[in-house]
């Protein structure tokens, strides 16, 4: 009985892993083969890079990459600034209505961003940021998850360090910058990972709020590239998909160990 159980668990894990990775494996397979070879799973067919050549010429990918890169950077910078300041205020400062405001912030966690799409659209238009990268990133900057994370991280900093820094002559922002931020480094790293992968993959909101190739991120570009009216070519679409996920995938494979450690240290799972 015990020996059976011992094998069931790993077997289940392997099965789940295979199911999870199979679309990616198929896209990888299809990207390097001609369409007919790909769908027929002709294992001995020739490998080819033609699909990548076709896909690359089919859309302004470089521009899309740049847009996505700018988007995740802008969002991350905005989030770091806002969540740091808000998290610090909630963790270490006293102001009237603090708990009430904090509950309001936490309630944001229960609201799916998709619900707010219309309101966000109106807001971004009013601000004149329609069809701009800042407009795409803006609604995500005041992240409730980030504020909560920073608050927890700052709360765990011993009060003596705060007091020692005060006596050594630091002002409030100085203490935040010299003591709290460096001590929360693992949290920042873990949060950056979550944020970058979320916004790299975000699709619906950028689709709605962008209009031109100059602002369109990869996800939107890819979906337009693969839209049925352009003719469906599984291999070419797979090649384009591989190109869009490659940077994140490579980064994760290279820094896997650091990422996992950052998550463990920040206490997120």
């Amino acid at each position, binding site marked *: 009985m015990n020996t059976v159980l011992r094998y069931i668990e790993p077997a289940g894990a392997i099965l789940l892993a295979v199911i999870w990775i199979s679309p990616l494996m198929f896209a990888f397979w299809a990207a390097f083969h001609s369409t007919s070879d790909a769908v027929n799973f002709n294992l001995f067919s020739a490998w080819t890079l033609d699909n990548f050549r076709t896909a690359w010429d089919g859309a302004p990918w470089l521009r899309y990459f740049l847009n996505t890169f700018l988007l995740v950077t802008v969002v991350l910078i905005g989030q770091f600034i806002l969540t740091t300041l808000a998290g610090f205020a909630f963790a270490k400062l006293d102001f009237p209505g603090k708990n009430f405001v904090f509950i309001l912030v936490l309630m944001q966690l229960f609201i799916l961003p998709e619900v707010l799409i219309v309101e966000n659209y109106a807001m971004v238009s009013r601000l004149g940021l329609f069809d701009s990268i800042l407009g795409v990133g803006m609604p995500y900057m005041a992240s409730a998850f980030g504020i909560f994370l920073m608050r927890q991280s700052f709360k765990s900093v*011993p009060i003596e360090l705060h007091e020692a*820094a005060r*006596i050594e002559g630091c002002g409030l922002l100085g203490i935040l910058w010299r003591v709290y931020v460096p001590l929360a480094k693992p949290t920042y790293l873990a949060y950056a990972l979550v944020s970058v992968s979320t916004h790299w993959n975000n699709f619906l909101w950028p689709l709605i709020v962008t209009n031109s190739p100059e602002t369109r991120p990869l996800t939107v570009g890819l979906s337009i590239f693969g839209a049925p009216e352009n003719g469906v070519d599984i291999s070419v679409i797979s090649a384009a998909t591989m190109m869009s996920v490659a940077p994140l995938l490579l980064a994760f494979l290279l820094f896997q160990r650091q990422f996992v450690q950052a998550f463990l240290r920040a206490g997120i799972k």
Partner: protein
Amino acid sequence: MTNAPFVVMKAVAKRWNGQLGVEDISLDIDEGSFVALLGPSGCGKSTSLRLLAGLEIPDEGQILIDGRDVTTSAASDRNLSMVFQSYALFPHLSVAENVIFGLKVRRVPRAERAKKMKRALQITGLEGLEHRKPGELSGGQRQRVALARAIVAGQRLCLMDEPLSNLDAKLRNSVRKDIKKLQRDLGITVIYVTHDQTEAMSMADKVVLMKDGRIQQVGTPDDLYNRPANTFVAEFVGAPPMALIQSSVLGGFDASLTLGLRAEHVSIVSKGEGQLSCTVSEAEFLGSETLIGLSHEGTVGLSVLQPGLALLDEGTTVDIAFDAANLHKFNQEGDRMSEV
């Protein structure tokens, strides 16, 4: 140097929602002196120190440092340094960066910073550890880093909050001497919080004994030991503490007095020759001498020291004698009465 005291607390009080903080703390501290705030836990000694540091703002009263009213000044404007019980070293900074943290914040030029740091590390014997992180140091070394950080800026006032309580007994003795020497060599004023009377008595020029948020006595270690202001001081200071005897037990005194008597002034005499006949309640061998605890109705903490190993069985009856000149007299309220 002027005659005005360096640090002055005038009728300072701090209360927390009805809970006891400190009340009516008045204190004059001369420049270059070593003052210990002593008392049982919860007596308000740490609160007093935090009020001085500017980490708390008093509800009443006034605090002056170097002639300047700093009652409501920020901690950073008071020109003092502090050593915390937990050392409060920044774990993400190396020893060197920890030491010069304050200098960097105050924008001291790089060359001067390096010079001051070198000297501080030299004084505290930390050379060679500059690049270690606090997590890689022993308890004693961390303690020295905290000291180095406190002296590097050359502040004239240094506050210490039980800096030795996280060290083992042996290290505590040597660091105690180091701190005292440091204070003397640098000529700084140290205000030192401790619950350990040995620390207070051995290091301080002046001891402030506190209880329940109020000062019980301010004086030299000699004052506290030999002229306790009240029965609390008498019972707190000294090991073993002073014995308290109801005057009715002895006779020959006004009734309702309390008499204090130190163990070293008591001797055991042969039966019938002593002033009091007591029962042995415990005997403790301390090495060079034996402490014999005695019990008698109307007395608390009566004991006698005998040289060498001199254990007595519990329950034995012994007679004790003492010179009436060595008795301390306290009135009904427990306050010391002027010498009769």
